[in-house]
Each structure stands twice: as C-alpha cells, then as structure tokens.
C-alpha cells in the first residue's frame, strides 16, 4: 500500500503510522466544566462512527517528513481519495485546528 504524502509524494505505507478517525474534534475544556465536559471527552476519545466506506483519518509520516496527515480513504477498498496536511504541518499559520 502506498500513501501519497502531500509533501513527499507516494510512499510505502511502512513509513506511516495510523492514528484513527479525524472527524472527532477535541472539545473545549473549561477547568470547571464538570461531568458535561467529561461526557464530551468520553465521546471524543471513545466513540467512533467506524464506517464501512469513506472515512477521514489521521496518518503520521513518522518514517519520512514527520507531518501529520488527514487522509480520505475507503475502509472497504483501502483506496485513498485524498491526503492533505494537518493544519499545523510545517510552518503553516493557523488560528486553530481545522483551519487551513
């Protein structure tokens, strides 16, 4: 399997590490958020859509340029539809996660 790193081009999957679903966003965590924030974090950390089909997911090109990537990939065919850089890869200046 090869993954097209937006910086390095197509590379053997052995250079990459998989993290998981890129859809969940880390919730804001006010210090006094109480159990409501726990609920949000529980959802963020533990619950997954785990779809059979196209997903957005995090890959890390740790065996290469050390960029975090967001790939659109099918879990049924393993085909990559797109691979883009995480908002903060390189010297990119983003106000917050998700901006690009």
């Amino acid at each position, binding site marked *: 399997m090869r*993954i097209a790193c937006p910086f390095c081009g197509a590379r053997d999957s052995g250079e990459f590490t998989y993290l998981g679903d890129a859809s969940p966003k880390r919730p804001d965590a006010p210090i006094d958020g109480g159990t409501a924030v*726990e609920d949000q*974090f529980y959802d963020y950390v533990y619950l997954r859509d785990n779809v059979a089909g196209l997903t957005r997911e*995090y890959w*890390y090109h740790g065996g290469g340029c050390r960029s975090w990537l967001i790939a659109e990939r099918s879990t049924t065919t393993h085909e990559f539809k797109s691979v883009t850089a995480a908002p903060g890869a390189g010297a990119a*200046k983003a106000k*917050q*996660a998700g901006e690009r």
Partner: protein
Amino acid sequence: MEGSTRTVAGQSHRLGAGGQIDRNAPLNFSFDGKEMTGFAGDTLASALVANGVRLVGRSFKYHRPRGILTAGPEEPNALVELRTGARREANTRATTSELYDGLVAQSQNRWPSLRHDFMSVNQLASPIFVAGFYYKTFMWPAKFWEALYEPAIRRAAGLGKTAGIADPDHYDKAWAHCDVLVVGGGATGLAAALSAGRAGARVILCDDDSRLGGRLQSDGGVIDGVDALQWVQSAVAELSSLPNVRIMTRTAVFGVYDSGDFGALERVNDHVPQPPEHQVRQRLWRIAAKRSVVGAGAIERPIVFPGNDRPAVMMASAVRTYVNRFAALPGKRIALFVNNDDGWSTVDAIRRAGVEVAAVIDPRGKPATGDYSGIRVIQGVVADVGGSVDGVSSITVAGAGGNQKIDADCLAMSGGWNPNLALSCFHRGKPEWRDDIAAFVPANAPAGMTMAGAANGDLSLGACLRTGHAAGAMAAAEAGAKGKSGNAAKASDEAFSIKPLWHVQVKGKAFVDFQHDVTASDVKLAQREGYESVEHLKRYTTLGMATDQGKTSNVTGLAIMADAVGRSIADTGTTVYRPPYAPVAIGALAGHNRDENFHATRLTPSHHWAAERGAVFVDTGLWKRAQWFPLPGETDWLQSVTREVLAVRNGVGFCDVSTLGKVDVRGADAGTFLDRVYINAFSALGVGKARYGLMLREDGIVMDDGTTSRLAEDHYFMTTTTAKAGPVMQHLEFCRQVLWPELDVQLSSATDQWAQFSIAGPRTRDLLQALVDPSEDMSNEGFPFMGVRTVKLRGGMEARLFRISFSGEMAFEIAVPARYGEAMARNLMIAGEPFGVTPYGTEALGVMRIEKGHVAGPELNGTTTAGDLGLGKMASKKKDFIGRVLSQREALTAPDRQVVVGIRPVDKTRRLRSGAHIVPKGAVPGPETDQGYVTSVCFSPTQNQWLGLGLVSHGAERHGEIVKAHDPLRNETYDVELCSPVFYDPEGVRQRA
C-alpha cells in the same frame, strides 16, 4: 523428430532428438536413492519422465500411489523432499524444480518405502475415512483425544519433513517500480510487454519459468508466419534491447496488494546446488506498478472418473510439454480422454514423437476439423483405469457399445481449461461464469489491472497476442507513455469447443482433489449433510486446501456440488481466492531480518568503551545498554550490582543515560505548549532551571515522565523515558500540528545528538571540580539543585550540565556531543580516579531508583493515573492539559485504586520477587482478596535486604500493615510490610547537598 522413437542411453523414455534441452550437458541426480541422468533444461519431473519413473509420491489421506499429473506450478501429486540436511525442502514440486547436477530428491509421506507404504492400509478403511469422518468420532473417552487419537492423526498427516534445523541460506528483499507490470511471459505477456515497452513505458515482465514463452515452449505454433519459438526469440531480443524493459525470469508474482503493490518471488539460486558466496537463495520483490497486465494463462483441468489418480494418468497439456519441450515420453502407448478441441492437439504431439496413440475417448466423438486418420476414436468416457503402483496398464472405456478395455501405459486427459484468474480475485472480486468455454473468467479485477489472453478466457493463440498487445498498449498509455506500440503479432484463431464433463458417474473412487484425496462421493456427502455453500464444502472436505490451493480441483469440485444441489455453476460461485498464488518460503518473506538482524540494534555513544571494560549488555527496546560491569573475581551479577550501588552511595559513579529520549522544543509558544502537554506548569520555569514533568494520555492515564529544562526563553530541552521516546515525539507532533496549530513551536529529536551521563554520589562535586574549568562555580549556591547550564571543561570542551538526580544522591547529568561520548567516559574515569569512581549499569540505576521510590516503566504500565503513582498533587488546577478531564472519571479516582507503596519482606533474609500478588494477612488468596502486586524489586545494599515497590489497593493508607506476598508460580508465600516507597533518604537531603 518425426518417427524418432529411439531413446537416449540410460534414459528409457527420452526421445533421441528435439526438445529445449541441452544434450551436451548431462546432469546426474537421484530419486529415492536411485541414480539417474537428465539434461540441462530439464525439470526434475521431466527427468523422471525421461527415466521412465512413474510412481513419485503418496497421497495425503489414503496414501494412494501417485504419479506426475501436470508440468507446472499446479501440480498436486509430484511433491518431493528436495536436497538434504539443513537445506531439505519439503513438498517441493518436481514439475517446477530445475534439474541441476547432483540433485537429490526423496519421495515423502510414505514408510518404509514409496513402493511399499505401510500407511496404504488406510485405503482399506477408506469406507469409513470419508469427508469429515473425524468430526463424528474420536470423542470417547474424552482424554483419549490428546493421548491417542490426535497424535496418531498428526503423525499420519502432514506431507514432507523439514530439516528441523536453521536454514543456512540467505534471503533478501527489494523494491522495484514500473509503469506496467506484465505477469506471465507467454504469448500474451510477451505481446503486452512489447506494446507497452515500445510505447516507452517502464515495464517489468515477470515469469515463473526459467525461460520465456509459456505454453509456446510446449505447443509451438506459427506467429507472424514463423515458428513460434523463433518469434519468442525475436520478441525477447527486442525486449532486451529496450532500456525501459526489465525481464525477470524465475520470478513468480504471487499477490496483488493495495495501490498497485505486487509481491513476487525470485528464485535466484534454486537451480544450483547451493547459492554462490554473497548471493541469496531467493529474493522477495515488492513491485510498485502504476498498471498491470496479467497474462497468466490457463490451467487444464482433470476429469473425475474412477482411477483418475493412477500414476501415468496425466493432463494432456502436460503430455505435450514433456514430449515437445523436454523430449520425454510419459508413455509409449498413450490414450486420450478429452471433452474439448484443445485436448485433440495432443494427438499430433504424440504422433510426431513417433509414439502410438492407443485411442482417443471423447464423449463428443471426433471433432469436426483435423486429420485424425488412423486414430482409434471412441465416443464415450473412461470408466476405470487398470494398473499397479507403477501406473496405468489399461483403461476401461464405456461407450455406446458397452465397456471395452484398451491397453495403454499412459492416459492423457483434458476436461477443459480454467483461466488463471487468481490475481484478479485477490481483492475479493468475484469471477463470472462463461458457458461457451465452460469456465470462470475474471470480472472484477483490482484497479489498474487488465487481464488478457487465456487468463481472461481468450484461449486461441491469435486472441492471446491481440489482447496482450492491446492491454499492454492501454496500460502504457494510462501510465503516461506517449510512444507508439506498433502492430500486434498475428496467429490463427483455432476453434475451441467444449462439452462440459465433470464427473463420470460410475462406481469407484474418483478423485477431485488429488493431494487431499477428496472424491466425488465426498462432495456429494457434504451436500447431503448440508455443507453446501462452497466455503462449507471446502472446509468440510478440505477440497482445495492442499499445497496446490486447488488449482486443478476447485472448479471441478464446485461443479459437482452445483449438480448435486441442482443449481447452476454460476449461482454456486467460487470460494474466496487468497494469496499467495504459489507458496512462498517463509525465509524469503523475512529476508535479511532474521536471527540477530531481526530488528536494528541501537548503540550508545560509550558502547565500545563499555564493551572493552567487559560490560554485560541488556536489550532495552532496540538499545543495548550496559547492565553492569563485572570485575575480575565477581561470580554473580548481584555481587557486581551491589558493589556499583555502594560505590555510588559512598563515593561517585557514572552511567550512560544517552538512551533517554531528548527533544528540542523551541519557538515563541514553547512554554504554553508544554503547559498543555504536561500536567504541571513549565511556562513559568526560569531559564537555567529543570523540572520533573508528567504527561498523560487523553484518557487520563500516565503516558510518560521526564525532566525538562529551559535553556533559553524560547528553548526547552525535554527528556522522555527510553521506551517512550518515539511515541512521545509522535504525540507532541500531533499536538503541534493537529490540536494547536496556532502555537509557534518546533520540535526536533536530539536523542542521538548527545552523549549524556549521570554522575552520582557524594563525591560527584569533587569529580566535577577536577573536570570542569576552574572558572566554573560548582558550589551548591553556584549550581543549585535543578539548575542547568553550559560549562567549560578542561582540555577545551563544553558540556551541558543538569543538576538532577534519579538516585537520591548528589548528582548531575552531563551531556556532550555524541562523538565525544567515549572520551567523556574515559575522562570521567580519569577525573574520578582519586575518588574511586565506578561506572555503573542499568541494574544499579534501577536499584537506586527503587530505593528512592521513583516510579519507572513497571509502574507507568499504561493503566496508572498520576494519583496512583503518588503524583496527583503535581497536576495544575489552573490550566487545561491533555488527559485532565478524563482523569477525573469516577473509577479513576475511586478510593480503592491500587497505588504505589513500598514493600519490604518481614523476614529480612527473604528475597522479594516482582509479580508476586498482595493479599491481606490471614486471607485465602483468591480473586476477592487479590489486592495488588509487586511491580519492581531490588536487593538494597543500603537497607541490606530485598525490597520493592508495588501497586496495592488503598496502599497509601496502609503503610505499616503486614500483608502476604503470594507467589504461587514460585511456590512462595511470605509476610511483607507495606511502607512508604521512599526507602532511602526520605528527606531528600543528599541530593540537595
């Protein structure tokens, strides 16, 4: 060659002329101890055929005598143990093993000999040994399964014996890249490679055989008006002249994986007795291809009738291969049993070799075209095969006029052709049924793959050349090649007609899967019992699960099942095709990475120095670390370690700690970044100061700890544990790039840049005074606890010095660029010599951290919280950090959690062992009384007893309580006292001295 039946001396069945063999290169070989001779260009199978050998093996279950069925990788019967000693290879197909001088082969799965195989008594019990019989019996008494039944079954099963000792040969792996991968070097593949290569595409052409040509080597023909073999020669010459084409013979493409990756096995040196020096036996190729053309041909299928497994019943195409390519005669009076036109072409081959055609049996009668004058043709079927262990002597034919017996010493059969479509199905694409050729054809090939020629159901030579050319041209264009592909080669489109005949339904054992002894009646039994899904059929009868993966049997088996169920073959479908297409040696899949090269080895900057001093090394992840430094006269590791600990506690010692992960954290927001990563605050840390930090995973569990220093306003230097250096770096980059891209922070691993040594003990300052430049103030005020700065060393060197302690002693860590690591070790020895300086290893390091109650890997086990480790108070209440929220969950803050405590045996002479569980004194050990366990132990020279750390429920409140350490694995139970984890200098006076 016409009429030349004279044979070669000593090779009873070798034609006097013809064939692609080198008669000037005779090769000696032996089979079951019998010496024989063949020629260069032979396979083991063709050499056996040429020597008149017909019995070559025994079947899996019934131990029936078996001969050579095919001439290719689909062979189910002719499996041998090839080579001897450590190089013995079980289950090696004689049909694909190239002959070399001195080859030694043994038949397998027989005792005491192939001819007289004791286990052939199984045939007597065969009425009971039907499909799945073992699921219905061997159940009583229960204990007899492991004791009696199973060992007997295991001994009887299996096929060949492996060497049982390490494989002495080398393997490696390599990558290759191309625009167009062409699989198969027959007519189709050559045409595809030519058209793609001419267009300018980077082409790799792979063929399993030692020479290109595929079936053209066996069947000949006329292409572009010349003899087919001549055409092959010129095609190969043209391909070789193209710099963008790479030809890989003896290379089998065995699998297609994601995004156009293919696996292929090159048999680099299987055709010689053993690999030359510096060369590998086999090489695994990972081929990355933009497009692929698969011209893998087709496989002829047997017909199922009683006696179809007798030696010298052979596929018709194999008969042609042996006669034409190898000038070897499978028989001297050959009968044919065919149901399709292609099978009839065997008649010509036999006639040209000057051998008698006993008869041709075809349920359709004589075909419409072709000159078969003088040939005895019987419209009918073969109902039985007579003979002995040495094979066919007669066949019984059932025709319109009843049964008749015909003398023959070989029966060539053809039930039609199955396109070799496995590669197209490895991504779980299902093939489609085509009635006109009575076969499955590819339908859903993986993206980028084009099936062509016979593999796609185009069985005529003309069609192979046309479709191969077109597929190659298309693939090249899709891959971006701009050149012209030229014209396709031309050959005739011989007619192909077939009348499906799967099974001659008469009484007698008729085999579907030869190797696994699956008969037609087994298939029907499975159907009666409800195992009618093809996958159930396969699993219940083991059809297609032998070493040939059912290449000659799967389609036939499911056709018989379809018939039994009353479904069409198309509706019945196939089982899932699974790679590898042909079996691959495990050694080749491992390549270089075996034995000591299994994983890379990391060496510390002082490694060679430590080795010179006789250090004993321990594997810590990939690192080799000095575990202790034995001195002459020391006989026991504990003696050495105790000496090292006492030397530190009473004087000074040093230890290479370069393996700790080190990260340069820089940027305007580096402090904020660390505040969010660690549970405690770092933005307020002063420049020139170090602080212990603890980081959590987002689920609130401790991830790692370490000391992080502030070297400049925008420069922190983080250390991680040795084990977690990689995962922490990945985590930090995730935080930087994904979670908080708004922060200006840059990360760089500096682990390998620095040689870092811990120097510890009350004489540390004395040692350092000797080492550092006199201008450096090393007093407690001038260099306080947790201070950090760069110092000048004597002799013209600079070092980073950190006043941190893991041992509880007055200690520093000193870091210099890695190239000076060895010099640093030597200079520490020199500087510390007056103070009895002692190098110490990881074991002494561990002893001292346990004495001091510092947690490490065994406590940071991925399930403990900061609170569990007694570090809950470190967590800032003013800021958010990774893991904060979920660390507050009820079960992670429950009062009965297992927390870190000190543990010391009440009997001071008793050895404490890690892994012992803790139960209340007086309680019966059981799930309800199991309260924790011992995580780390050491013999403490300062306390003069074994002691340890543990995780124990309510542990913090139970200091002073006597409990039991329960260690049933080592038959030990003894009293221990729970106590504070800090055994040594609990006030921390020494490290601040």
